[in-house]
């Protein structure tokens, strides 16, 4: 007893429901990249203002109670090579050729801060199977709950900036990352890195205000004197400095669906180690695919019904329709 054309069509109908959605050019249930939260807070980092003093790194360690990191060979004090479970925030140096001129791609150098970008539509939150990583519905801070985490490290695979770090040397490890000092925000404070930045390179504030501030800076003329707020975007405490040239690009405005940390520089961001990302978030791509296949578990149930029908028919050898 072979497979009749009718039976084949029945199997195909069920199976193609599942298969078709991965083929179809317009997915059944497109999940758009998420929109920015109105009350979201973040940081504007301006590499042209940064002097590489690493005060932000020291403040971050102190207020997050992080141990010294000796990953640079031969270091006797805290001297991390990169972000790690002991280091949530790092200032890195880009250098090219003679490295003489600040904020110049050729024969120049630039600083770049790296820490959690607090994505508008975070891949880590979408990936985490047990909701250990969540996005605060008001501030938009991407937070970690060790009480929920199973340590699968899918967040590390998912994050386009490689921010979540794992405690490889611990028997009871955790994921570690910048949470924008949400413990300080809860007490009316703000991110330690911004509070202790002496130069106004990192400023904290509402993301809408930070975007306005970033656009204002891009519109400034190099050579003229302009004011730069210190610590917070809405601060009355400002300093005046001679404007240096900017690349006309706010990193984080659109990248991967946007981030709450925005960056300005005069060296291409790719050279500074930031990945070129499409405007669409990876989370929305992944979830569109998953939800097309599994929304309401309709496709699986239909397939199960079809499979049961055929198995029942074939095992009992009954002449069913």
């Amino acid at each position, binding site marked *: *007893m*072979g*497979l009749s054309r009718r039976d084949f069509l029945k*199997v195909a109908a069920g*199976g193609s429901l*599942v298969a078709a959605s*991965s*083929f179809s050019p317009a997915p059944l249930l497109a999940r758009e990249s998420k929109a920015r939260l109105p009350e979201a807070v973040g940081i504007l980092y301006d590499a042209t203002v940064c002097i590489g003093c690493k005060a932000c790194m020291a403040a971050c360690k102190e207020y997050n109670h992080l141990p010294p990191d000796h990953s640079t060979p031969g270091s006797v004090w805290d001297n991390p090579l990169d*972000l790690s479970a002991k280091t949530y925030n790092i200032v890195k140096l880009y250098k090219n050729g003679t490295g003489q001129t600040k904020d110049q791609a050729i024969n120049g150098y630039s600083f770049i801060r790296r820490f959690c970008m607090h994505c508008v539509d975070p891949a880590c939150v*979408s*990936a*985490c*199977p*047990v*909701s250990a990583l969540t996005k605060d519905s008001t501030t938009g801070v991407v937070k970690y709950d*060790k009480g*929920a*985490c*199973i*340590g*699968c*490290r*899918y967040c*590390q*695979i*998912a994050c*386009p900036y*490689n921010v979540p*770090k794992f*405690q*490889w*040397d*611990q028997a*009871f*490890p*955790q994921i570690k990352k910048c949470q924008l000092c949400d413990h300080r925000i809860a007490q009316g404070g703000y991110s330690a890195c911004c509070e202790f930045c002496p130069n106004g390179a990192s400023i904290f504030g509402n993301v809408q205000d930070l975007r306005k501030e970033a656009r204002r800076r891009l519109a400034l003329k190099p050579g003229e004197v302009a004011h730069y707020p210190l610590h917070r975007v809405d601060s009355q405490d400002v300093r005046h400095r001679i404007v240096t040239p900017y690349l006309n690009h706010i990193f984080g405005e659109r990248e*991967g669906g946007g981030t709450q940390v925005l960056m300005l520089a005069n060296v291409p961001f790719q050279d500074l180690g930031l*990945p*070129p*990302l*499409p405007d669409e978030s*990876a*989370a929305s*791509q*992944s979830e569109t*695919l*998953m*939800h097309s*296949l*599994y929304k309401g578990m309709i496709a699986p149930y239909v*397939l*199960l019904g079809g*499979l*049961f029908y*055929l*198995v*029942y028919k*074939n*095992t*009992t050898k009954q002449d069913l329709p």
Partner: protein
Amino acid sequence: MVEESQPLGGKIVTKPFLVLAALAAVGVVLMLYRYLYGLGAVTNLSDGYPWGIWITYDVLVGTALGCGGYAMALLVYIFNRWEYHPLVRSAVLTSVFGYTLAGVAIFLDIGRYWNGYHLFLPWYVNFNSVLVEVALCIAAYVGILWLELAPTVLEGHQDNPKAQRARQRLERWLPVIVALGILLPTMHQSSLGTLMIIAGYKLSPLWQTPLLPLLFLISAITMGFAITVFESILSSLAFKRPFETPMIAKVGGVMVWLIGVYLVIRLADLLLRGAPVFSSGFLSSMFILENLLYVVPLVLLASPAYRANLRSLFVASSSLLLAGSLYRFNAFLVGYSAGPGWTYFPALPEILITLSIVALELMGYLYFVKRYPVLPKAEHV
């Protein structure tokens, strides 16, 4: 069912069994070390390569090799090809061990294993996570596989009336169990591919595609048929039984079609996306090797005359198993990069733990085929 199965009998504890037991013992000691001193103490995993061979081999390749039961059930119960039924039991047995030990490997790999049960509590579960689908589906399928194996075990206890009653009750539920046993692997074998979609640019365009779930599904089913052929030939050799040639030759024919479909989709996708097939250096070489391994069985099994040849069946199924395994390694490790400066090659203890898991699988297989009616009665073959 017309055909009968019978236990092979013979001593369980043989020399090869003892070698496997020694390997397993080494692994168990290293596992203790991992729980005492953390993952860094036994693995070369890092923040750049958070997933290593325990995920890629034990879970991805392990469950794909465990797709024999799934592939044969598809052929027998859905496409109504009862002539293949004698192969089902041993295929299910291989699947039981492949999947059960993949489940064990997950608990070695996850850092905060004591929270593992959160995956089953709705107030923790994030239904947007691809990993949830994979984890729940694999867990459910391990249960289904043991239910599929249960009649074989119960049949082994002929003189126990309770066991026989339980078997009859279980067999009434067979259509439900088998239907679930086909649905669940369809879901999670495709989702294993979907896992990498969210990695975006970190996975090379040679592997990163929205078709990952479809390619993972087809290649898993193909590997399921290949492992059934491979295991049939090896067990005939090892236990000095007649070869199941005409039957496995026909399975070879099914494989050819599946490989053809797979390769057409794979190549069309690369062409449409304009992936840098030849200009990616080492990754290109790995890509070409992976696909050549797919072409070997396609050529070897193309004509029915070749398929009747045991040697070409064996080489073809081995090549296909390597192809599917390399595809998984490429899509999760070789083609994955968190950026410059990160490298990964498994540490010795990491490899030994994986080997010990394979040893446990083989020990389980040997025990079951000797003790329980898994393989078809020799004179019927």
